[in-house]
């Protein structure tokens, strides 16, 4: 996604100003509101944000998996140079499975409960690649072995409810990998799992990605999950990308107050116990009527009048490839001044009090 790398090859997928709105009786919900990025093969993009920030909708929207009714999609999505932003299911079906695939959040609900694991893996092979049943069966067996499932031939005949959560997630990864996709979406792949299992699954995804030279979009609410695994990170808030940078750059010089707040509000292992947390006050805005200026302004400790009136654009400043949308960025003189001004005025937005 970075400019420096763009020269070497054409990106696998490039988004420009992608929007996804939902029509509801309350009005139009701007779930994704103008997101752009590009990603090359073999790279991992981490998309980070809290629930309702549009990160999960974004990946379904790129895949074209949202229902047609009551959904308004806009912007351009280019997959290998081909525009698929407005493509219908018939056109996308060619891409699904063998070009792009998805690993869902909850392995409990994302596997068909009344279908054997084996059939769920082989069906995409049989229908997309037109291989024989025996060959598909053989491939499924290899896939299960490669995702680290013991006794794979027995597992093929089992139903999802007979497997543990971690095993189910491995099966789901096997299904997603079956037809050798070039792009893998992993939508909170470990949120439903225990920490020790989470580590296993993330390692597995890493290994498979490297082996197959896939691009991966890893969606999560946990900055820790992407810190060691993504090449680039995009932080989302209220439907928009607020900061985008190569991972090391992002952690080394966080510019957006939301990114900073997100990191600071997490309790850390190396902090002494009873350390008071820097909570973000308030809660995310209503996406039917988002604030006019910067969407984070009402909760932002740096916010000035300008932030409430004028939405900052997502652009790169000093470091190429590091984009952020803020008038008073963290770690800059303007930012420090704005924070000092607010603190002097007693407007401490990082309060633990009422929402």
């Amino acid at each position, binding site marked *: 996604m970075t400019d420096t790398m763009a020269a070497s090859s054409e990106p696998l997928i490039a988004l420009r100003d992608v929007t996804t709105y939902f029509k*509801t*009786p*309350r009005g139009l919900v701007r779930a994704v509101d103008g997101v752009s990025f590009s990603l090359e093969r073999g790279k991992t993009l981490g998309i980070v944000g809290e629930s309702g920030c549009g990160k999960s909708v974004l990946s379904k929207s790129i895949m074209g998996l949202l*229902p047609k*009714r*009551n959904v308004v999609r806009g912007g351009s999505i280019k997959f290998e140079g081909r525009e698929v932003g407005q493509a219908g299911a018939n056109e996308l079906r060619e891409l699904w499975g063998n070009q792009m695939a998805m690993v869902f959040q909850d392995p409990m609900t994302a596997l068909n409960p009344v279908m054997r694991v084996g059939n769920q893996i082989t069906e995409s092979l049989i229908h997309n690649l037109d291989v024989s049943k025996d060959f598909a069966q053989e491939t499924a067996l290899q896939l299960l072995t490669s995702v680290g499932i013991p006794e794979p031939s027995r597992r093929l005949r089992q139903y999802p409810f007979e497997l543990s959560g971690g095993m189910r997630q491995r099966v789901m990864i096997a299904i997603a990998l079956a037809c050798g996709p070039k792009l893998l979406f992993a939508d909170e792949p470990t949120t439903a799992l225990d920490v020790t299992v989470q580590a296993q699954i993330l390692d597995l995804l890493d290994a498979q990605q490297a082996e197959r030279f896939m691009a991966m979009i890893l969606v999560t609410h946990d900055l820790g999950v992407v810190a060691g695994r993504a090449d680039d990170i995009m932080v989302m808030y209220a439907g928009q990308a607020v900061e985008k940078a190569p991972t090391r750059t992002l952690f080394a010089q966080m510019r957006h107050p939301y990114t900073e707040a997100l990191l600071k509000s997490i309790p850390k292992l190396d902090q002494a116990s009873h350390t008071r947390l820097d909570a973000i006050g308030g809660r995310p805005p209503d996406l039917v009527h988002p604030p006019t200026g910067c969407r984070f302004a009402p909760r932002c400790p740096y916010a000035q009048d300008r932030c409430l009136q004028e939405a900052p654009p997502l652009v790169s400043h000093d470091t190429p490839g590091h984009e952020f949308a803020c008038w008073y960025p963290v770690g800059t003189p303007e930012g420090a001044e704005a924070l000092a001004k607010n603190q002097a005025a007693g407007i401490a937005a990082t309060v633990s009090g009422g929402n």
Partner: protein
Amino acid sequence: MSVSGAIAPNIQLGAKIKVEKEKRKRLGITGTISAVWLALIGLSALLAPWLPIPSPKQAYIDLVQPDGNAPFSTSGHVLGLDGGGHDMLAQTIHGARVSLQIAFGAVMFGMVVGGFLGLSAGFFKGKVDRFISTLFDIFLAVPALILAMSLVAFLSGSSAQSGFLSIERIMMLALGIVATPPLGRIARASTLTWSEREFVMAARAQGAKNFKIMFIEILPNVLPAMMSIALLSVGVVVVAEGGLSLLGVGVNFTDKPSWGNMIALYAQTDLQLHPWLVFTPIIAVFLTVLSLNNLGDIIRARFDAKETTL
């Protein structure tokens, strides 16, 4: 549709459809029409003796043709007369009185008894649940209409001499017993899911007694699901009364007209020549059941009664 089974299919209708059906605040057009019809028919049934309509027993025999044909519409008789010279509007309204009285009585019985049993079974679980569920199963092991028929037969047999129970009361009781297990099972299923909720544990942690938890915490949550099924059940009982009359069980036409015995009588005597006589009470039944089903659906959609999946 007919007796208890009809309760089942509707349970889920609309419940899970969240695509476009956001919770409606008001009744909507169809809901309003349904409510108006039910209010109209309910009020006229309630006030029938005081309405400016002839008595259903009054026979305008002079208006009936010698060949037994009664004029369809004469001044003063909006829905015409039947072969015996009885005013059809009066018959239908007085019929509503009997049919609706039976239906509401039966469903009230089912709500109270079934609700109490279901709530107890779902709340206490274990032995209480096994006992009550078996009881329900026993009553559900006989098709509802046949159970109702047998109960009416037994009950009228046993009160034949004493005359303690009028036939309407017998119908009410018999159909009430039949309506109890389905309503009870809804109450049980709903109670089971609600008592899993942590607020029940929270109430217990506060020191609330079982009685309070059952009736203050759980019942208000179970009631919407029961209410929507109860509305359907009223319709089902109205239909069942018709079915029983067609089988020759139930209120006697010469005593009191009911929608059921009107349909049964005219179907035997007038279907070929005066089908309108048959269709009048049928339309009344249809509109009433339709309205009840519609309101039941609306309530269910509003309360998202998903847990009533039995």
